[in-house]
C-alpha cells in the first residue's frame, strides 16, 4: 500500500467517525440549548437567544412541578436496587462458580435468567401489577425496587460470574486451608477482589434502573413517580412547555453523563462483557 492511499483512507475514516459523532452530539446540544431558552424563542426558532435559567427554576422549584421529588424517587429506587442486585448477584456468582452446587441449580439460575433477560418486560409488568395490587403494595418503593432488582439480575449475574471466575482457585483453597469458612472467604477475599467487576455491573444496574420507563409507568403512583415517567407526562400535556421539558430531560441525563466522564471504563467493560455472552 502506498503511503498516500493509506493517508487518504485515514482521512476518510476520520471523516466518517467524527461525522457520526456530530450526528449523535448535535441533537443533545440542541436540547441543551433549548433548556436555556424562553418558550417564545423556541417556538420562533431563534438560534441564538438570551440564556435564561427560568426553565430549570420552574421545573425544580415551582409549586406546580414535582420534578425534584421525581428525581429523588429515581435516585432512591436506583441506589437501593443497585445495592441489592450487586450483593445478591455476587454472592450467588461466587457459589455457582467456585462451590459447584448441584448442576440443575446452576442450569436453572443461569439458563432461566438468560431467557428472562430476552423476554419483553411488558409481558411481566401486567402480572406484577396484579400481584402487587393484591398485596396492597402498588405504588410503593418496595414494588419498584424489587422489580428493578429482578430486571437487572440477569446482567449482574452474567457479569459477576465472569469476574469471580477470574479470581484464582488456589487463593480460595489457601484461605480455606487456613481455616476460613466460606463467609470469611467471601468477605475478605471475593468481595475485595471483585470490586472492579462490581463497579462495572453496578454502573450498568444504576443506569438501567434510573432509565426504566416501562416498569415505573405501571407500578408507581403519584408519590413514587420516577423522572422518566414524569418526562413522558410532560410531553403528553396538551400545551407542551418545551423549555421545561428540555430542562427536565437534561437533568435526567446528568447521572449518565457523570458515569461517562468518571467511570467510562466500567460502563464500556460492562456493556461489552454483557453483550457477547
Amino acid at each position, binding site marked *: 500500500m502506498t503511503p498516500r492511499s*493509506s493517508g487518504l*483512507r*485515514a482521512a*476518510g*475514516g476520520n471523516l466518517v*467517525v*467524527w461525522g457520526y*459523532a456530530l450526528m*449523535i452530539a448535535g441533537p*443533545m446540544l*440542541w436540547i441543551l440549548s433549548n433548556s436555556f431558552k424562553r418558550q417564545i424563542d423556541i*417556538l420562533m*426558532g431563534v438560534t441564538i437567544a438570551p440564556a435564561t435559567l427560568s426553565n430549570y427554576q420552574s421545573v425544580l422549584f415551582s409549586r406546580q412541578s414535582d420534578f425534584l421529588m421525581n428525581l429523588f424517587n429515581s435516585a432512591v429506587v436506583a441506589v437501593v436496587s443497585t445495592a441489592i442486585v450487586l450483593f445478591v448477584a455476587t*454472592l450467588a456468582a461466587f*457459589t455457582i462458580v467456585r*462451590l459447584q*452446587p448441584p448442576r440443575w*441449580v446452576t442450569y436453572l*439460575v443461569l439458563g*432461566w435468567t438468560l*431467557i428472562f433477560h*430476552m*423476554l*419483553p*418486560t*411488558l*409481558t*411481566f*409488568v*401486567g*402480572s406484577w*401489577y*396484579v*400481584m402487587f*395490587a393484591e398485596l*396492597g403494595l402498588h405504588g410503593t418503593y418496595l414494588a419498584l425496587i424489587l422489580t428493578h432488582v*429482578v430486571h437487572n*439480575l440477569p446482567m449482574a449475574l452474567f457479569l459477576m460470574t465472569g469476574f469471580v471466575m477470574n479470581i484464582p482457585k488456589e487463593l480460595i483453597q489457601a484461605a480455606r486451608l487456613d481455616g476460613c*469458612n*466460606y*463467609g470469611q472467604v467471601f468477605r475478605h477475599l471475593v468481595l475485595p477482589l471483585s470490586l472492579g467487576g462490581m463497579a462495572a455491573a453496578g454502573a450498568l444496574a444504576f*443506569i438501567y434502573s434510573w*432509565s426504566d*420507563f*416501562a416498569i415505573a*409507568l*405501571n407500578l408507581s403512583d403519584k408519590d413514587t413517580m420516577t*423522572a*422518566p415517567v414524569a*418526562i*413522558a407526562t410532560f*410531553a*403528553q400535556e396538551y400545551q407542551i412547555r418545551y423549555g421545561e421539558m428540555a430542562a427536565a430531560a437534561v437533568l435526567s441525563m446528568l447521572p*449518565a453523563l457523570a458515569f*461517562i466522564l468518571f467511570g467510562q471504563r466500567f*460502563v464500556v467493560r460492562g*456493556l*461489552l462483557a454483557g*453483550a*457477547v455472552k
Partner: protein
Amino acid sequence: MRASTTTKGLMRANRLWVIGSLAPVVVLLVALTIWPVINVAILSLSSLEWSDGKADLSFVGLANFIELFTDQPVYWAGVRNNIIFAVAAVSCQMVLGFFMALSVQRASKIGRGVLTAIYLLPIVIPPIVIGAMWRLLLGSDFGIVNNILGFIGLGPFDWLGSARLALPSVIAVDIWHWTPFVFLLMLTGLESLDQEVFEAARIDVLNGWQELRHITIPLMLPTILITVAFRLILSFKVFDEVFLLTAGGPGTATEVINFSIYRVFFGQDNVGLGSAMSFLTLFSVAFIAILANAVVRRWRRNKEVHA
C-alpha cells in the same frame, strides 16, 4: 478451632452456605419471574374484576385467546410492524456499525476518549429522553429537521403524523439510538483479531475489498451473528420511544407488540385479554431465543470441527 473441623460438620457448613447464598436469587426469580409466567397463564384463562383491591377471577376458558386470534387486528398489526421494525433497524445498524468500526481502525487515534464518550451517550441516557428529544426534532411545525430541510426547499414533512412516514421515522430513531452500540461491539471484535493474518494478506496483494470479503468478514462472523441475534431479540422489547414518538399511531402505523399489551392491560383494564397477549408473546420470544441460541451453538461447533 471450632467443631466444624470434623468432616461431617464441614460438609454441613458447606451445604448451609450453598443454600444460603443462592436463596435470595432463587426466591427473587421464583416470586417475580417464574410465578408471573404461571400467573399470566392463569389470568389469560380468566376474566378479572377488582373489588376493594381484591382481584375477583372467573374462569372463561379459551375465550380470551379466541378473541385474540379473531378480533384483535391491532395486536397482529403490532406483530407485523415489530418484525419490519426489527429487520430494518437491525440490518441498518449492523451495516453502519461494521463499516464505522472498520474506518475507525484506519483513522488516527487522536480523540479516541472523546469519541467513545460521545458514542456512549445514546446508550446510557434514558430511552424516554431520546423519545422526547426526537419528538421535538421531528415535530412538523417547528422541528429542526423540517427547518433544515426547508433551507434546501424540501418539506415540511409530517414525520410522525403521517401513516406512510411514521414507521420509517421510528426505525430511523432506533438506528440512531443503537448503531453506536453495534459499533462498539464490532470495534472490540476487530481489534481482537490476529493482525498477522492481515499482514500476510497484504503480502499476497489482496486489495481492500478482497481482504474484507475473504478475511475480515469470515473472522468476524461469530461476533456478527451473536450481535444480530442479540439486537433482533431486544428489538421486540421496544416500547419507550414508541410511547412518546407516536403512541402506536397514526392508526396502527407504528403499533408494536408491547404497546398493544400495555394499552389492553392498563388502558382498557382488560386483564384477561392482556394476559393472553403477554402469554403468546412470552412463549413466542422464548421459543425464538432458544432456537437462535441452538443455531449459534451448532454453527460454532461445526466451525470447530472443520477448522
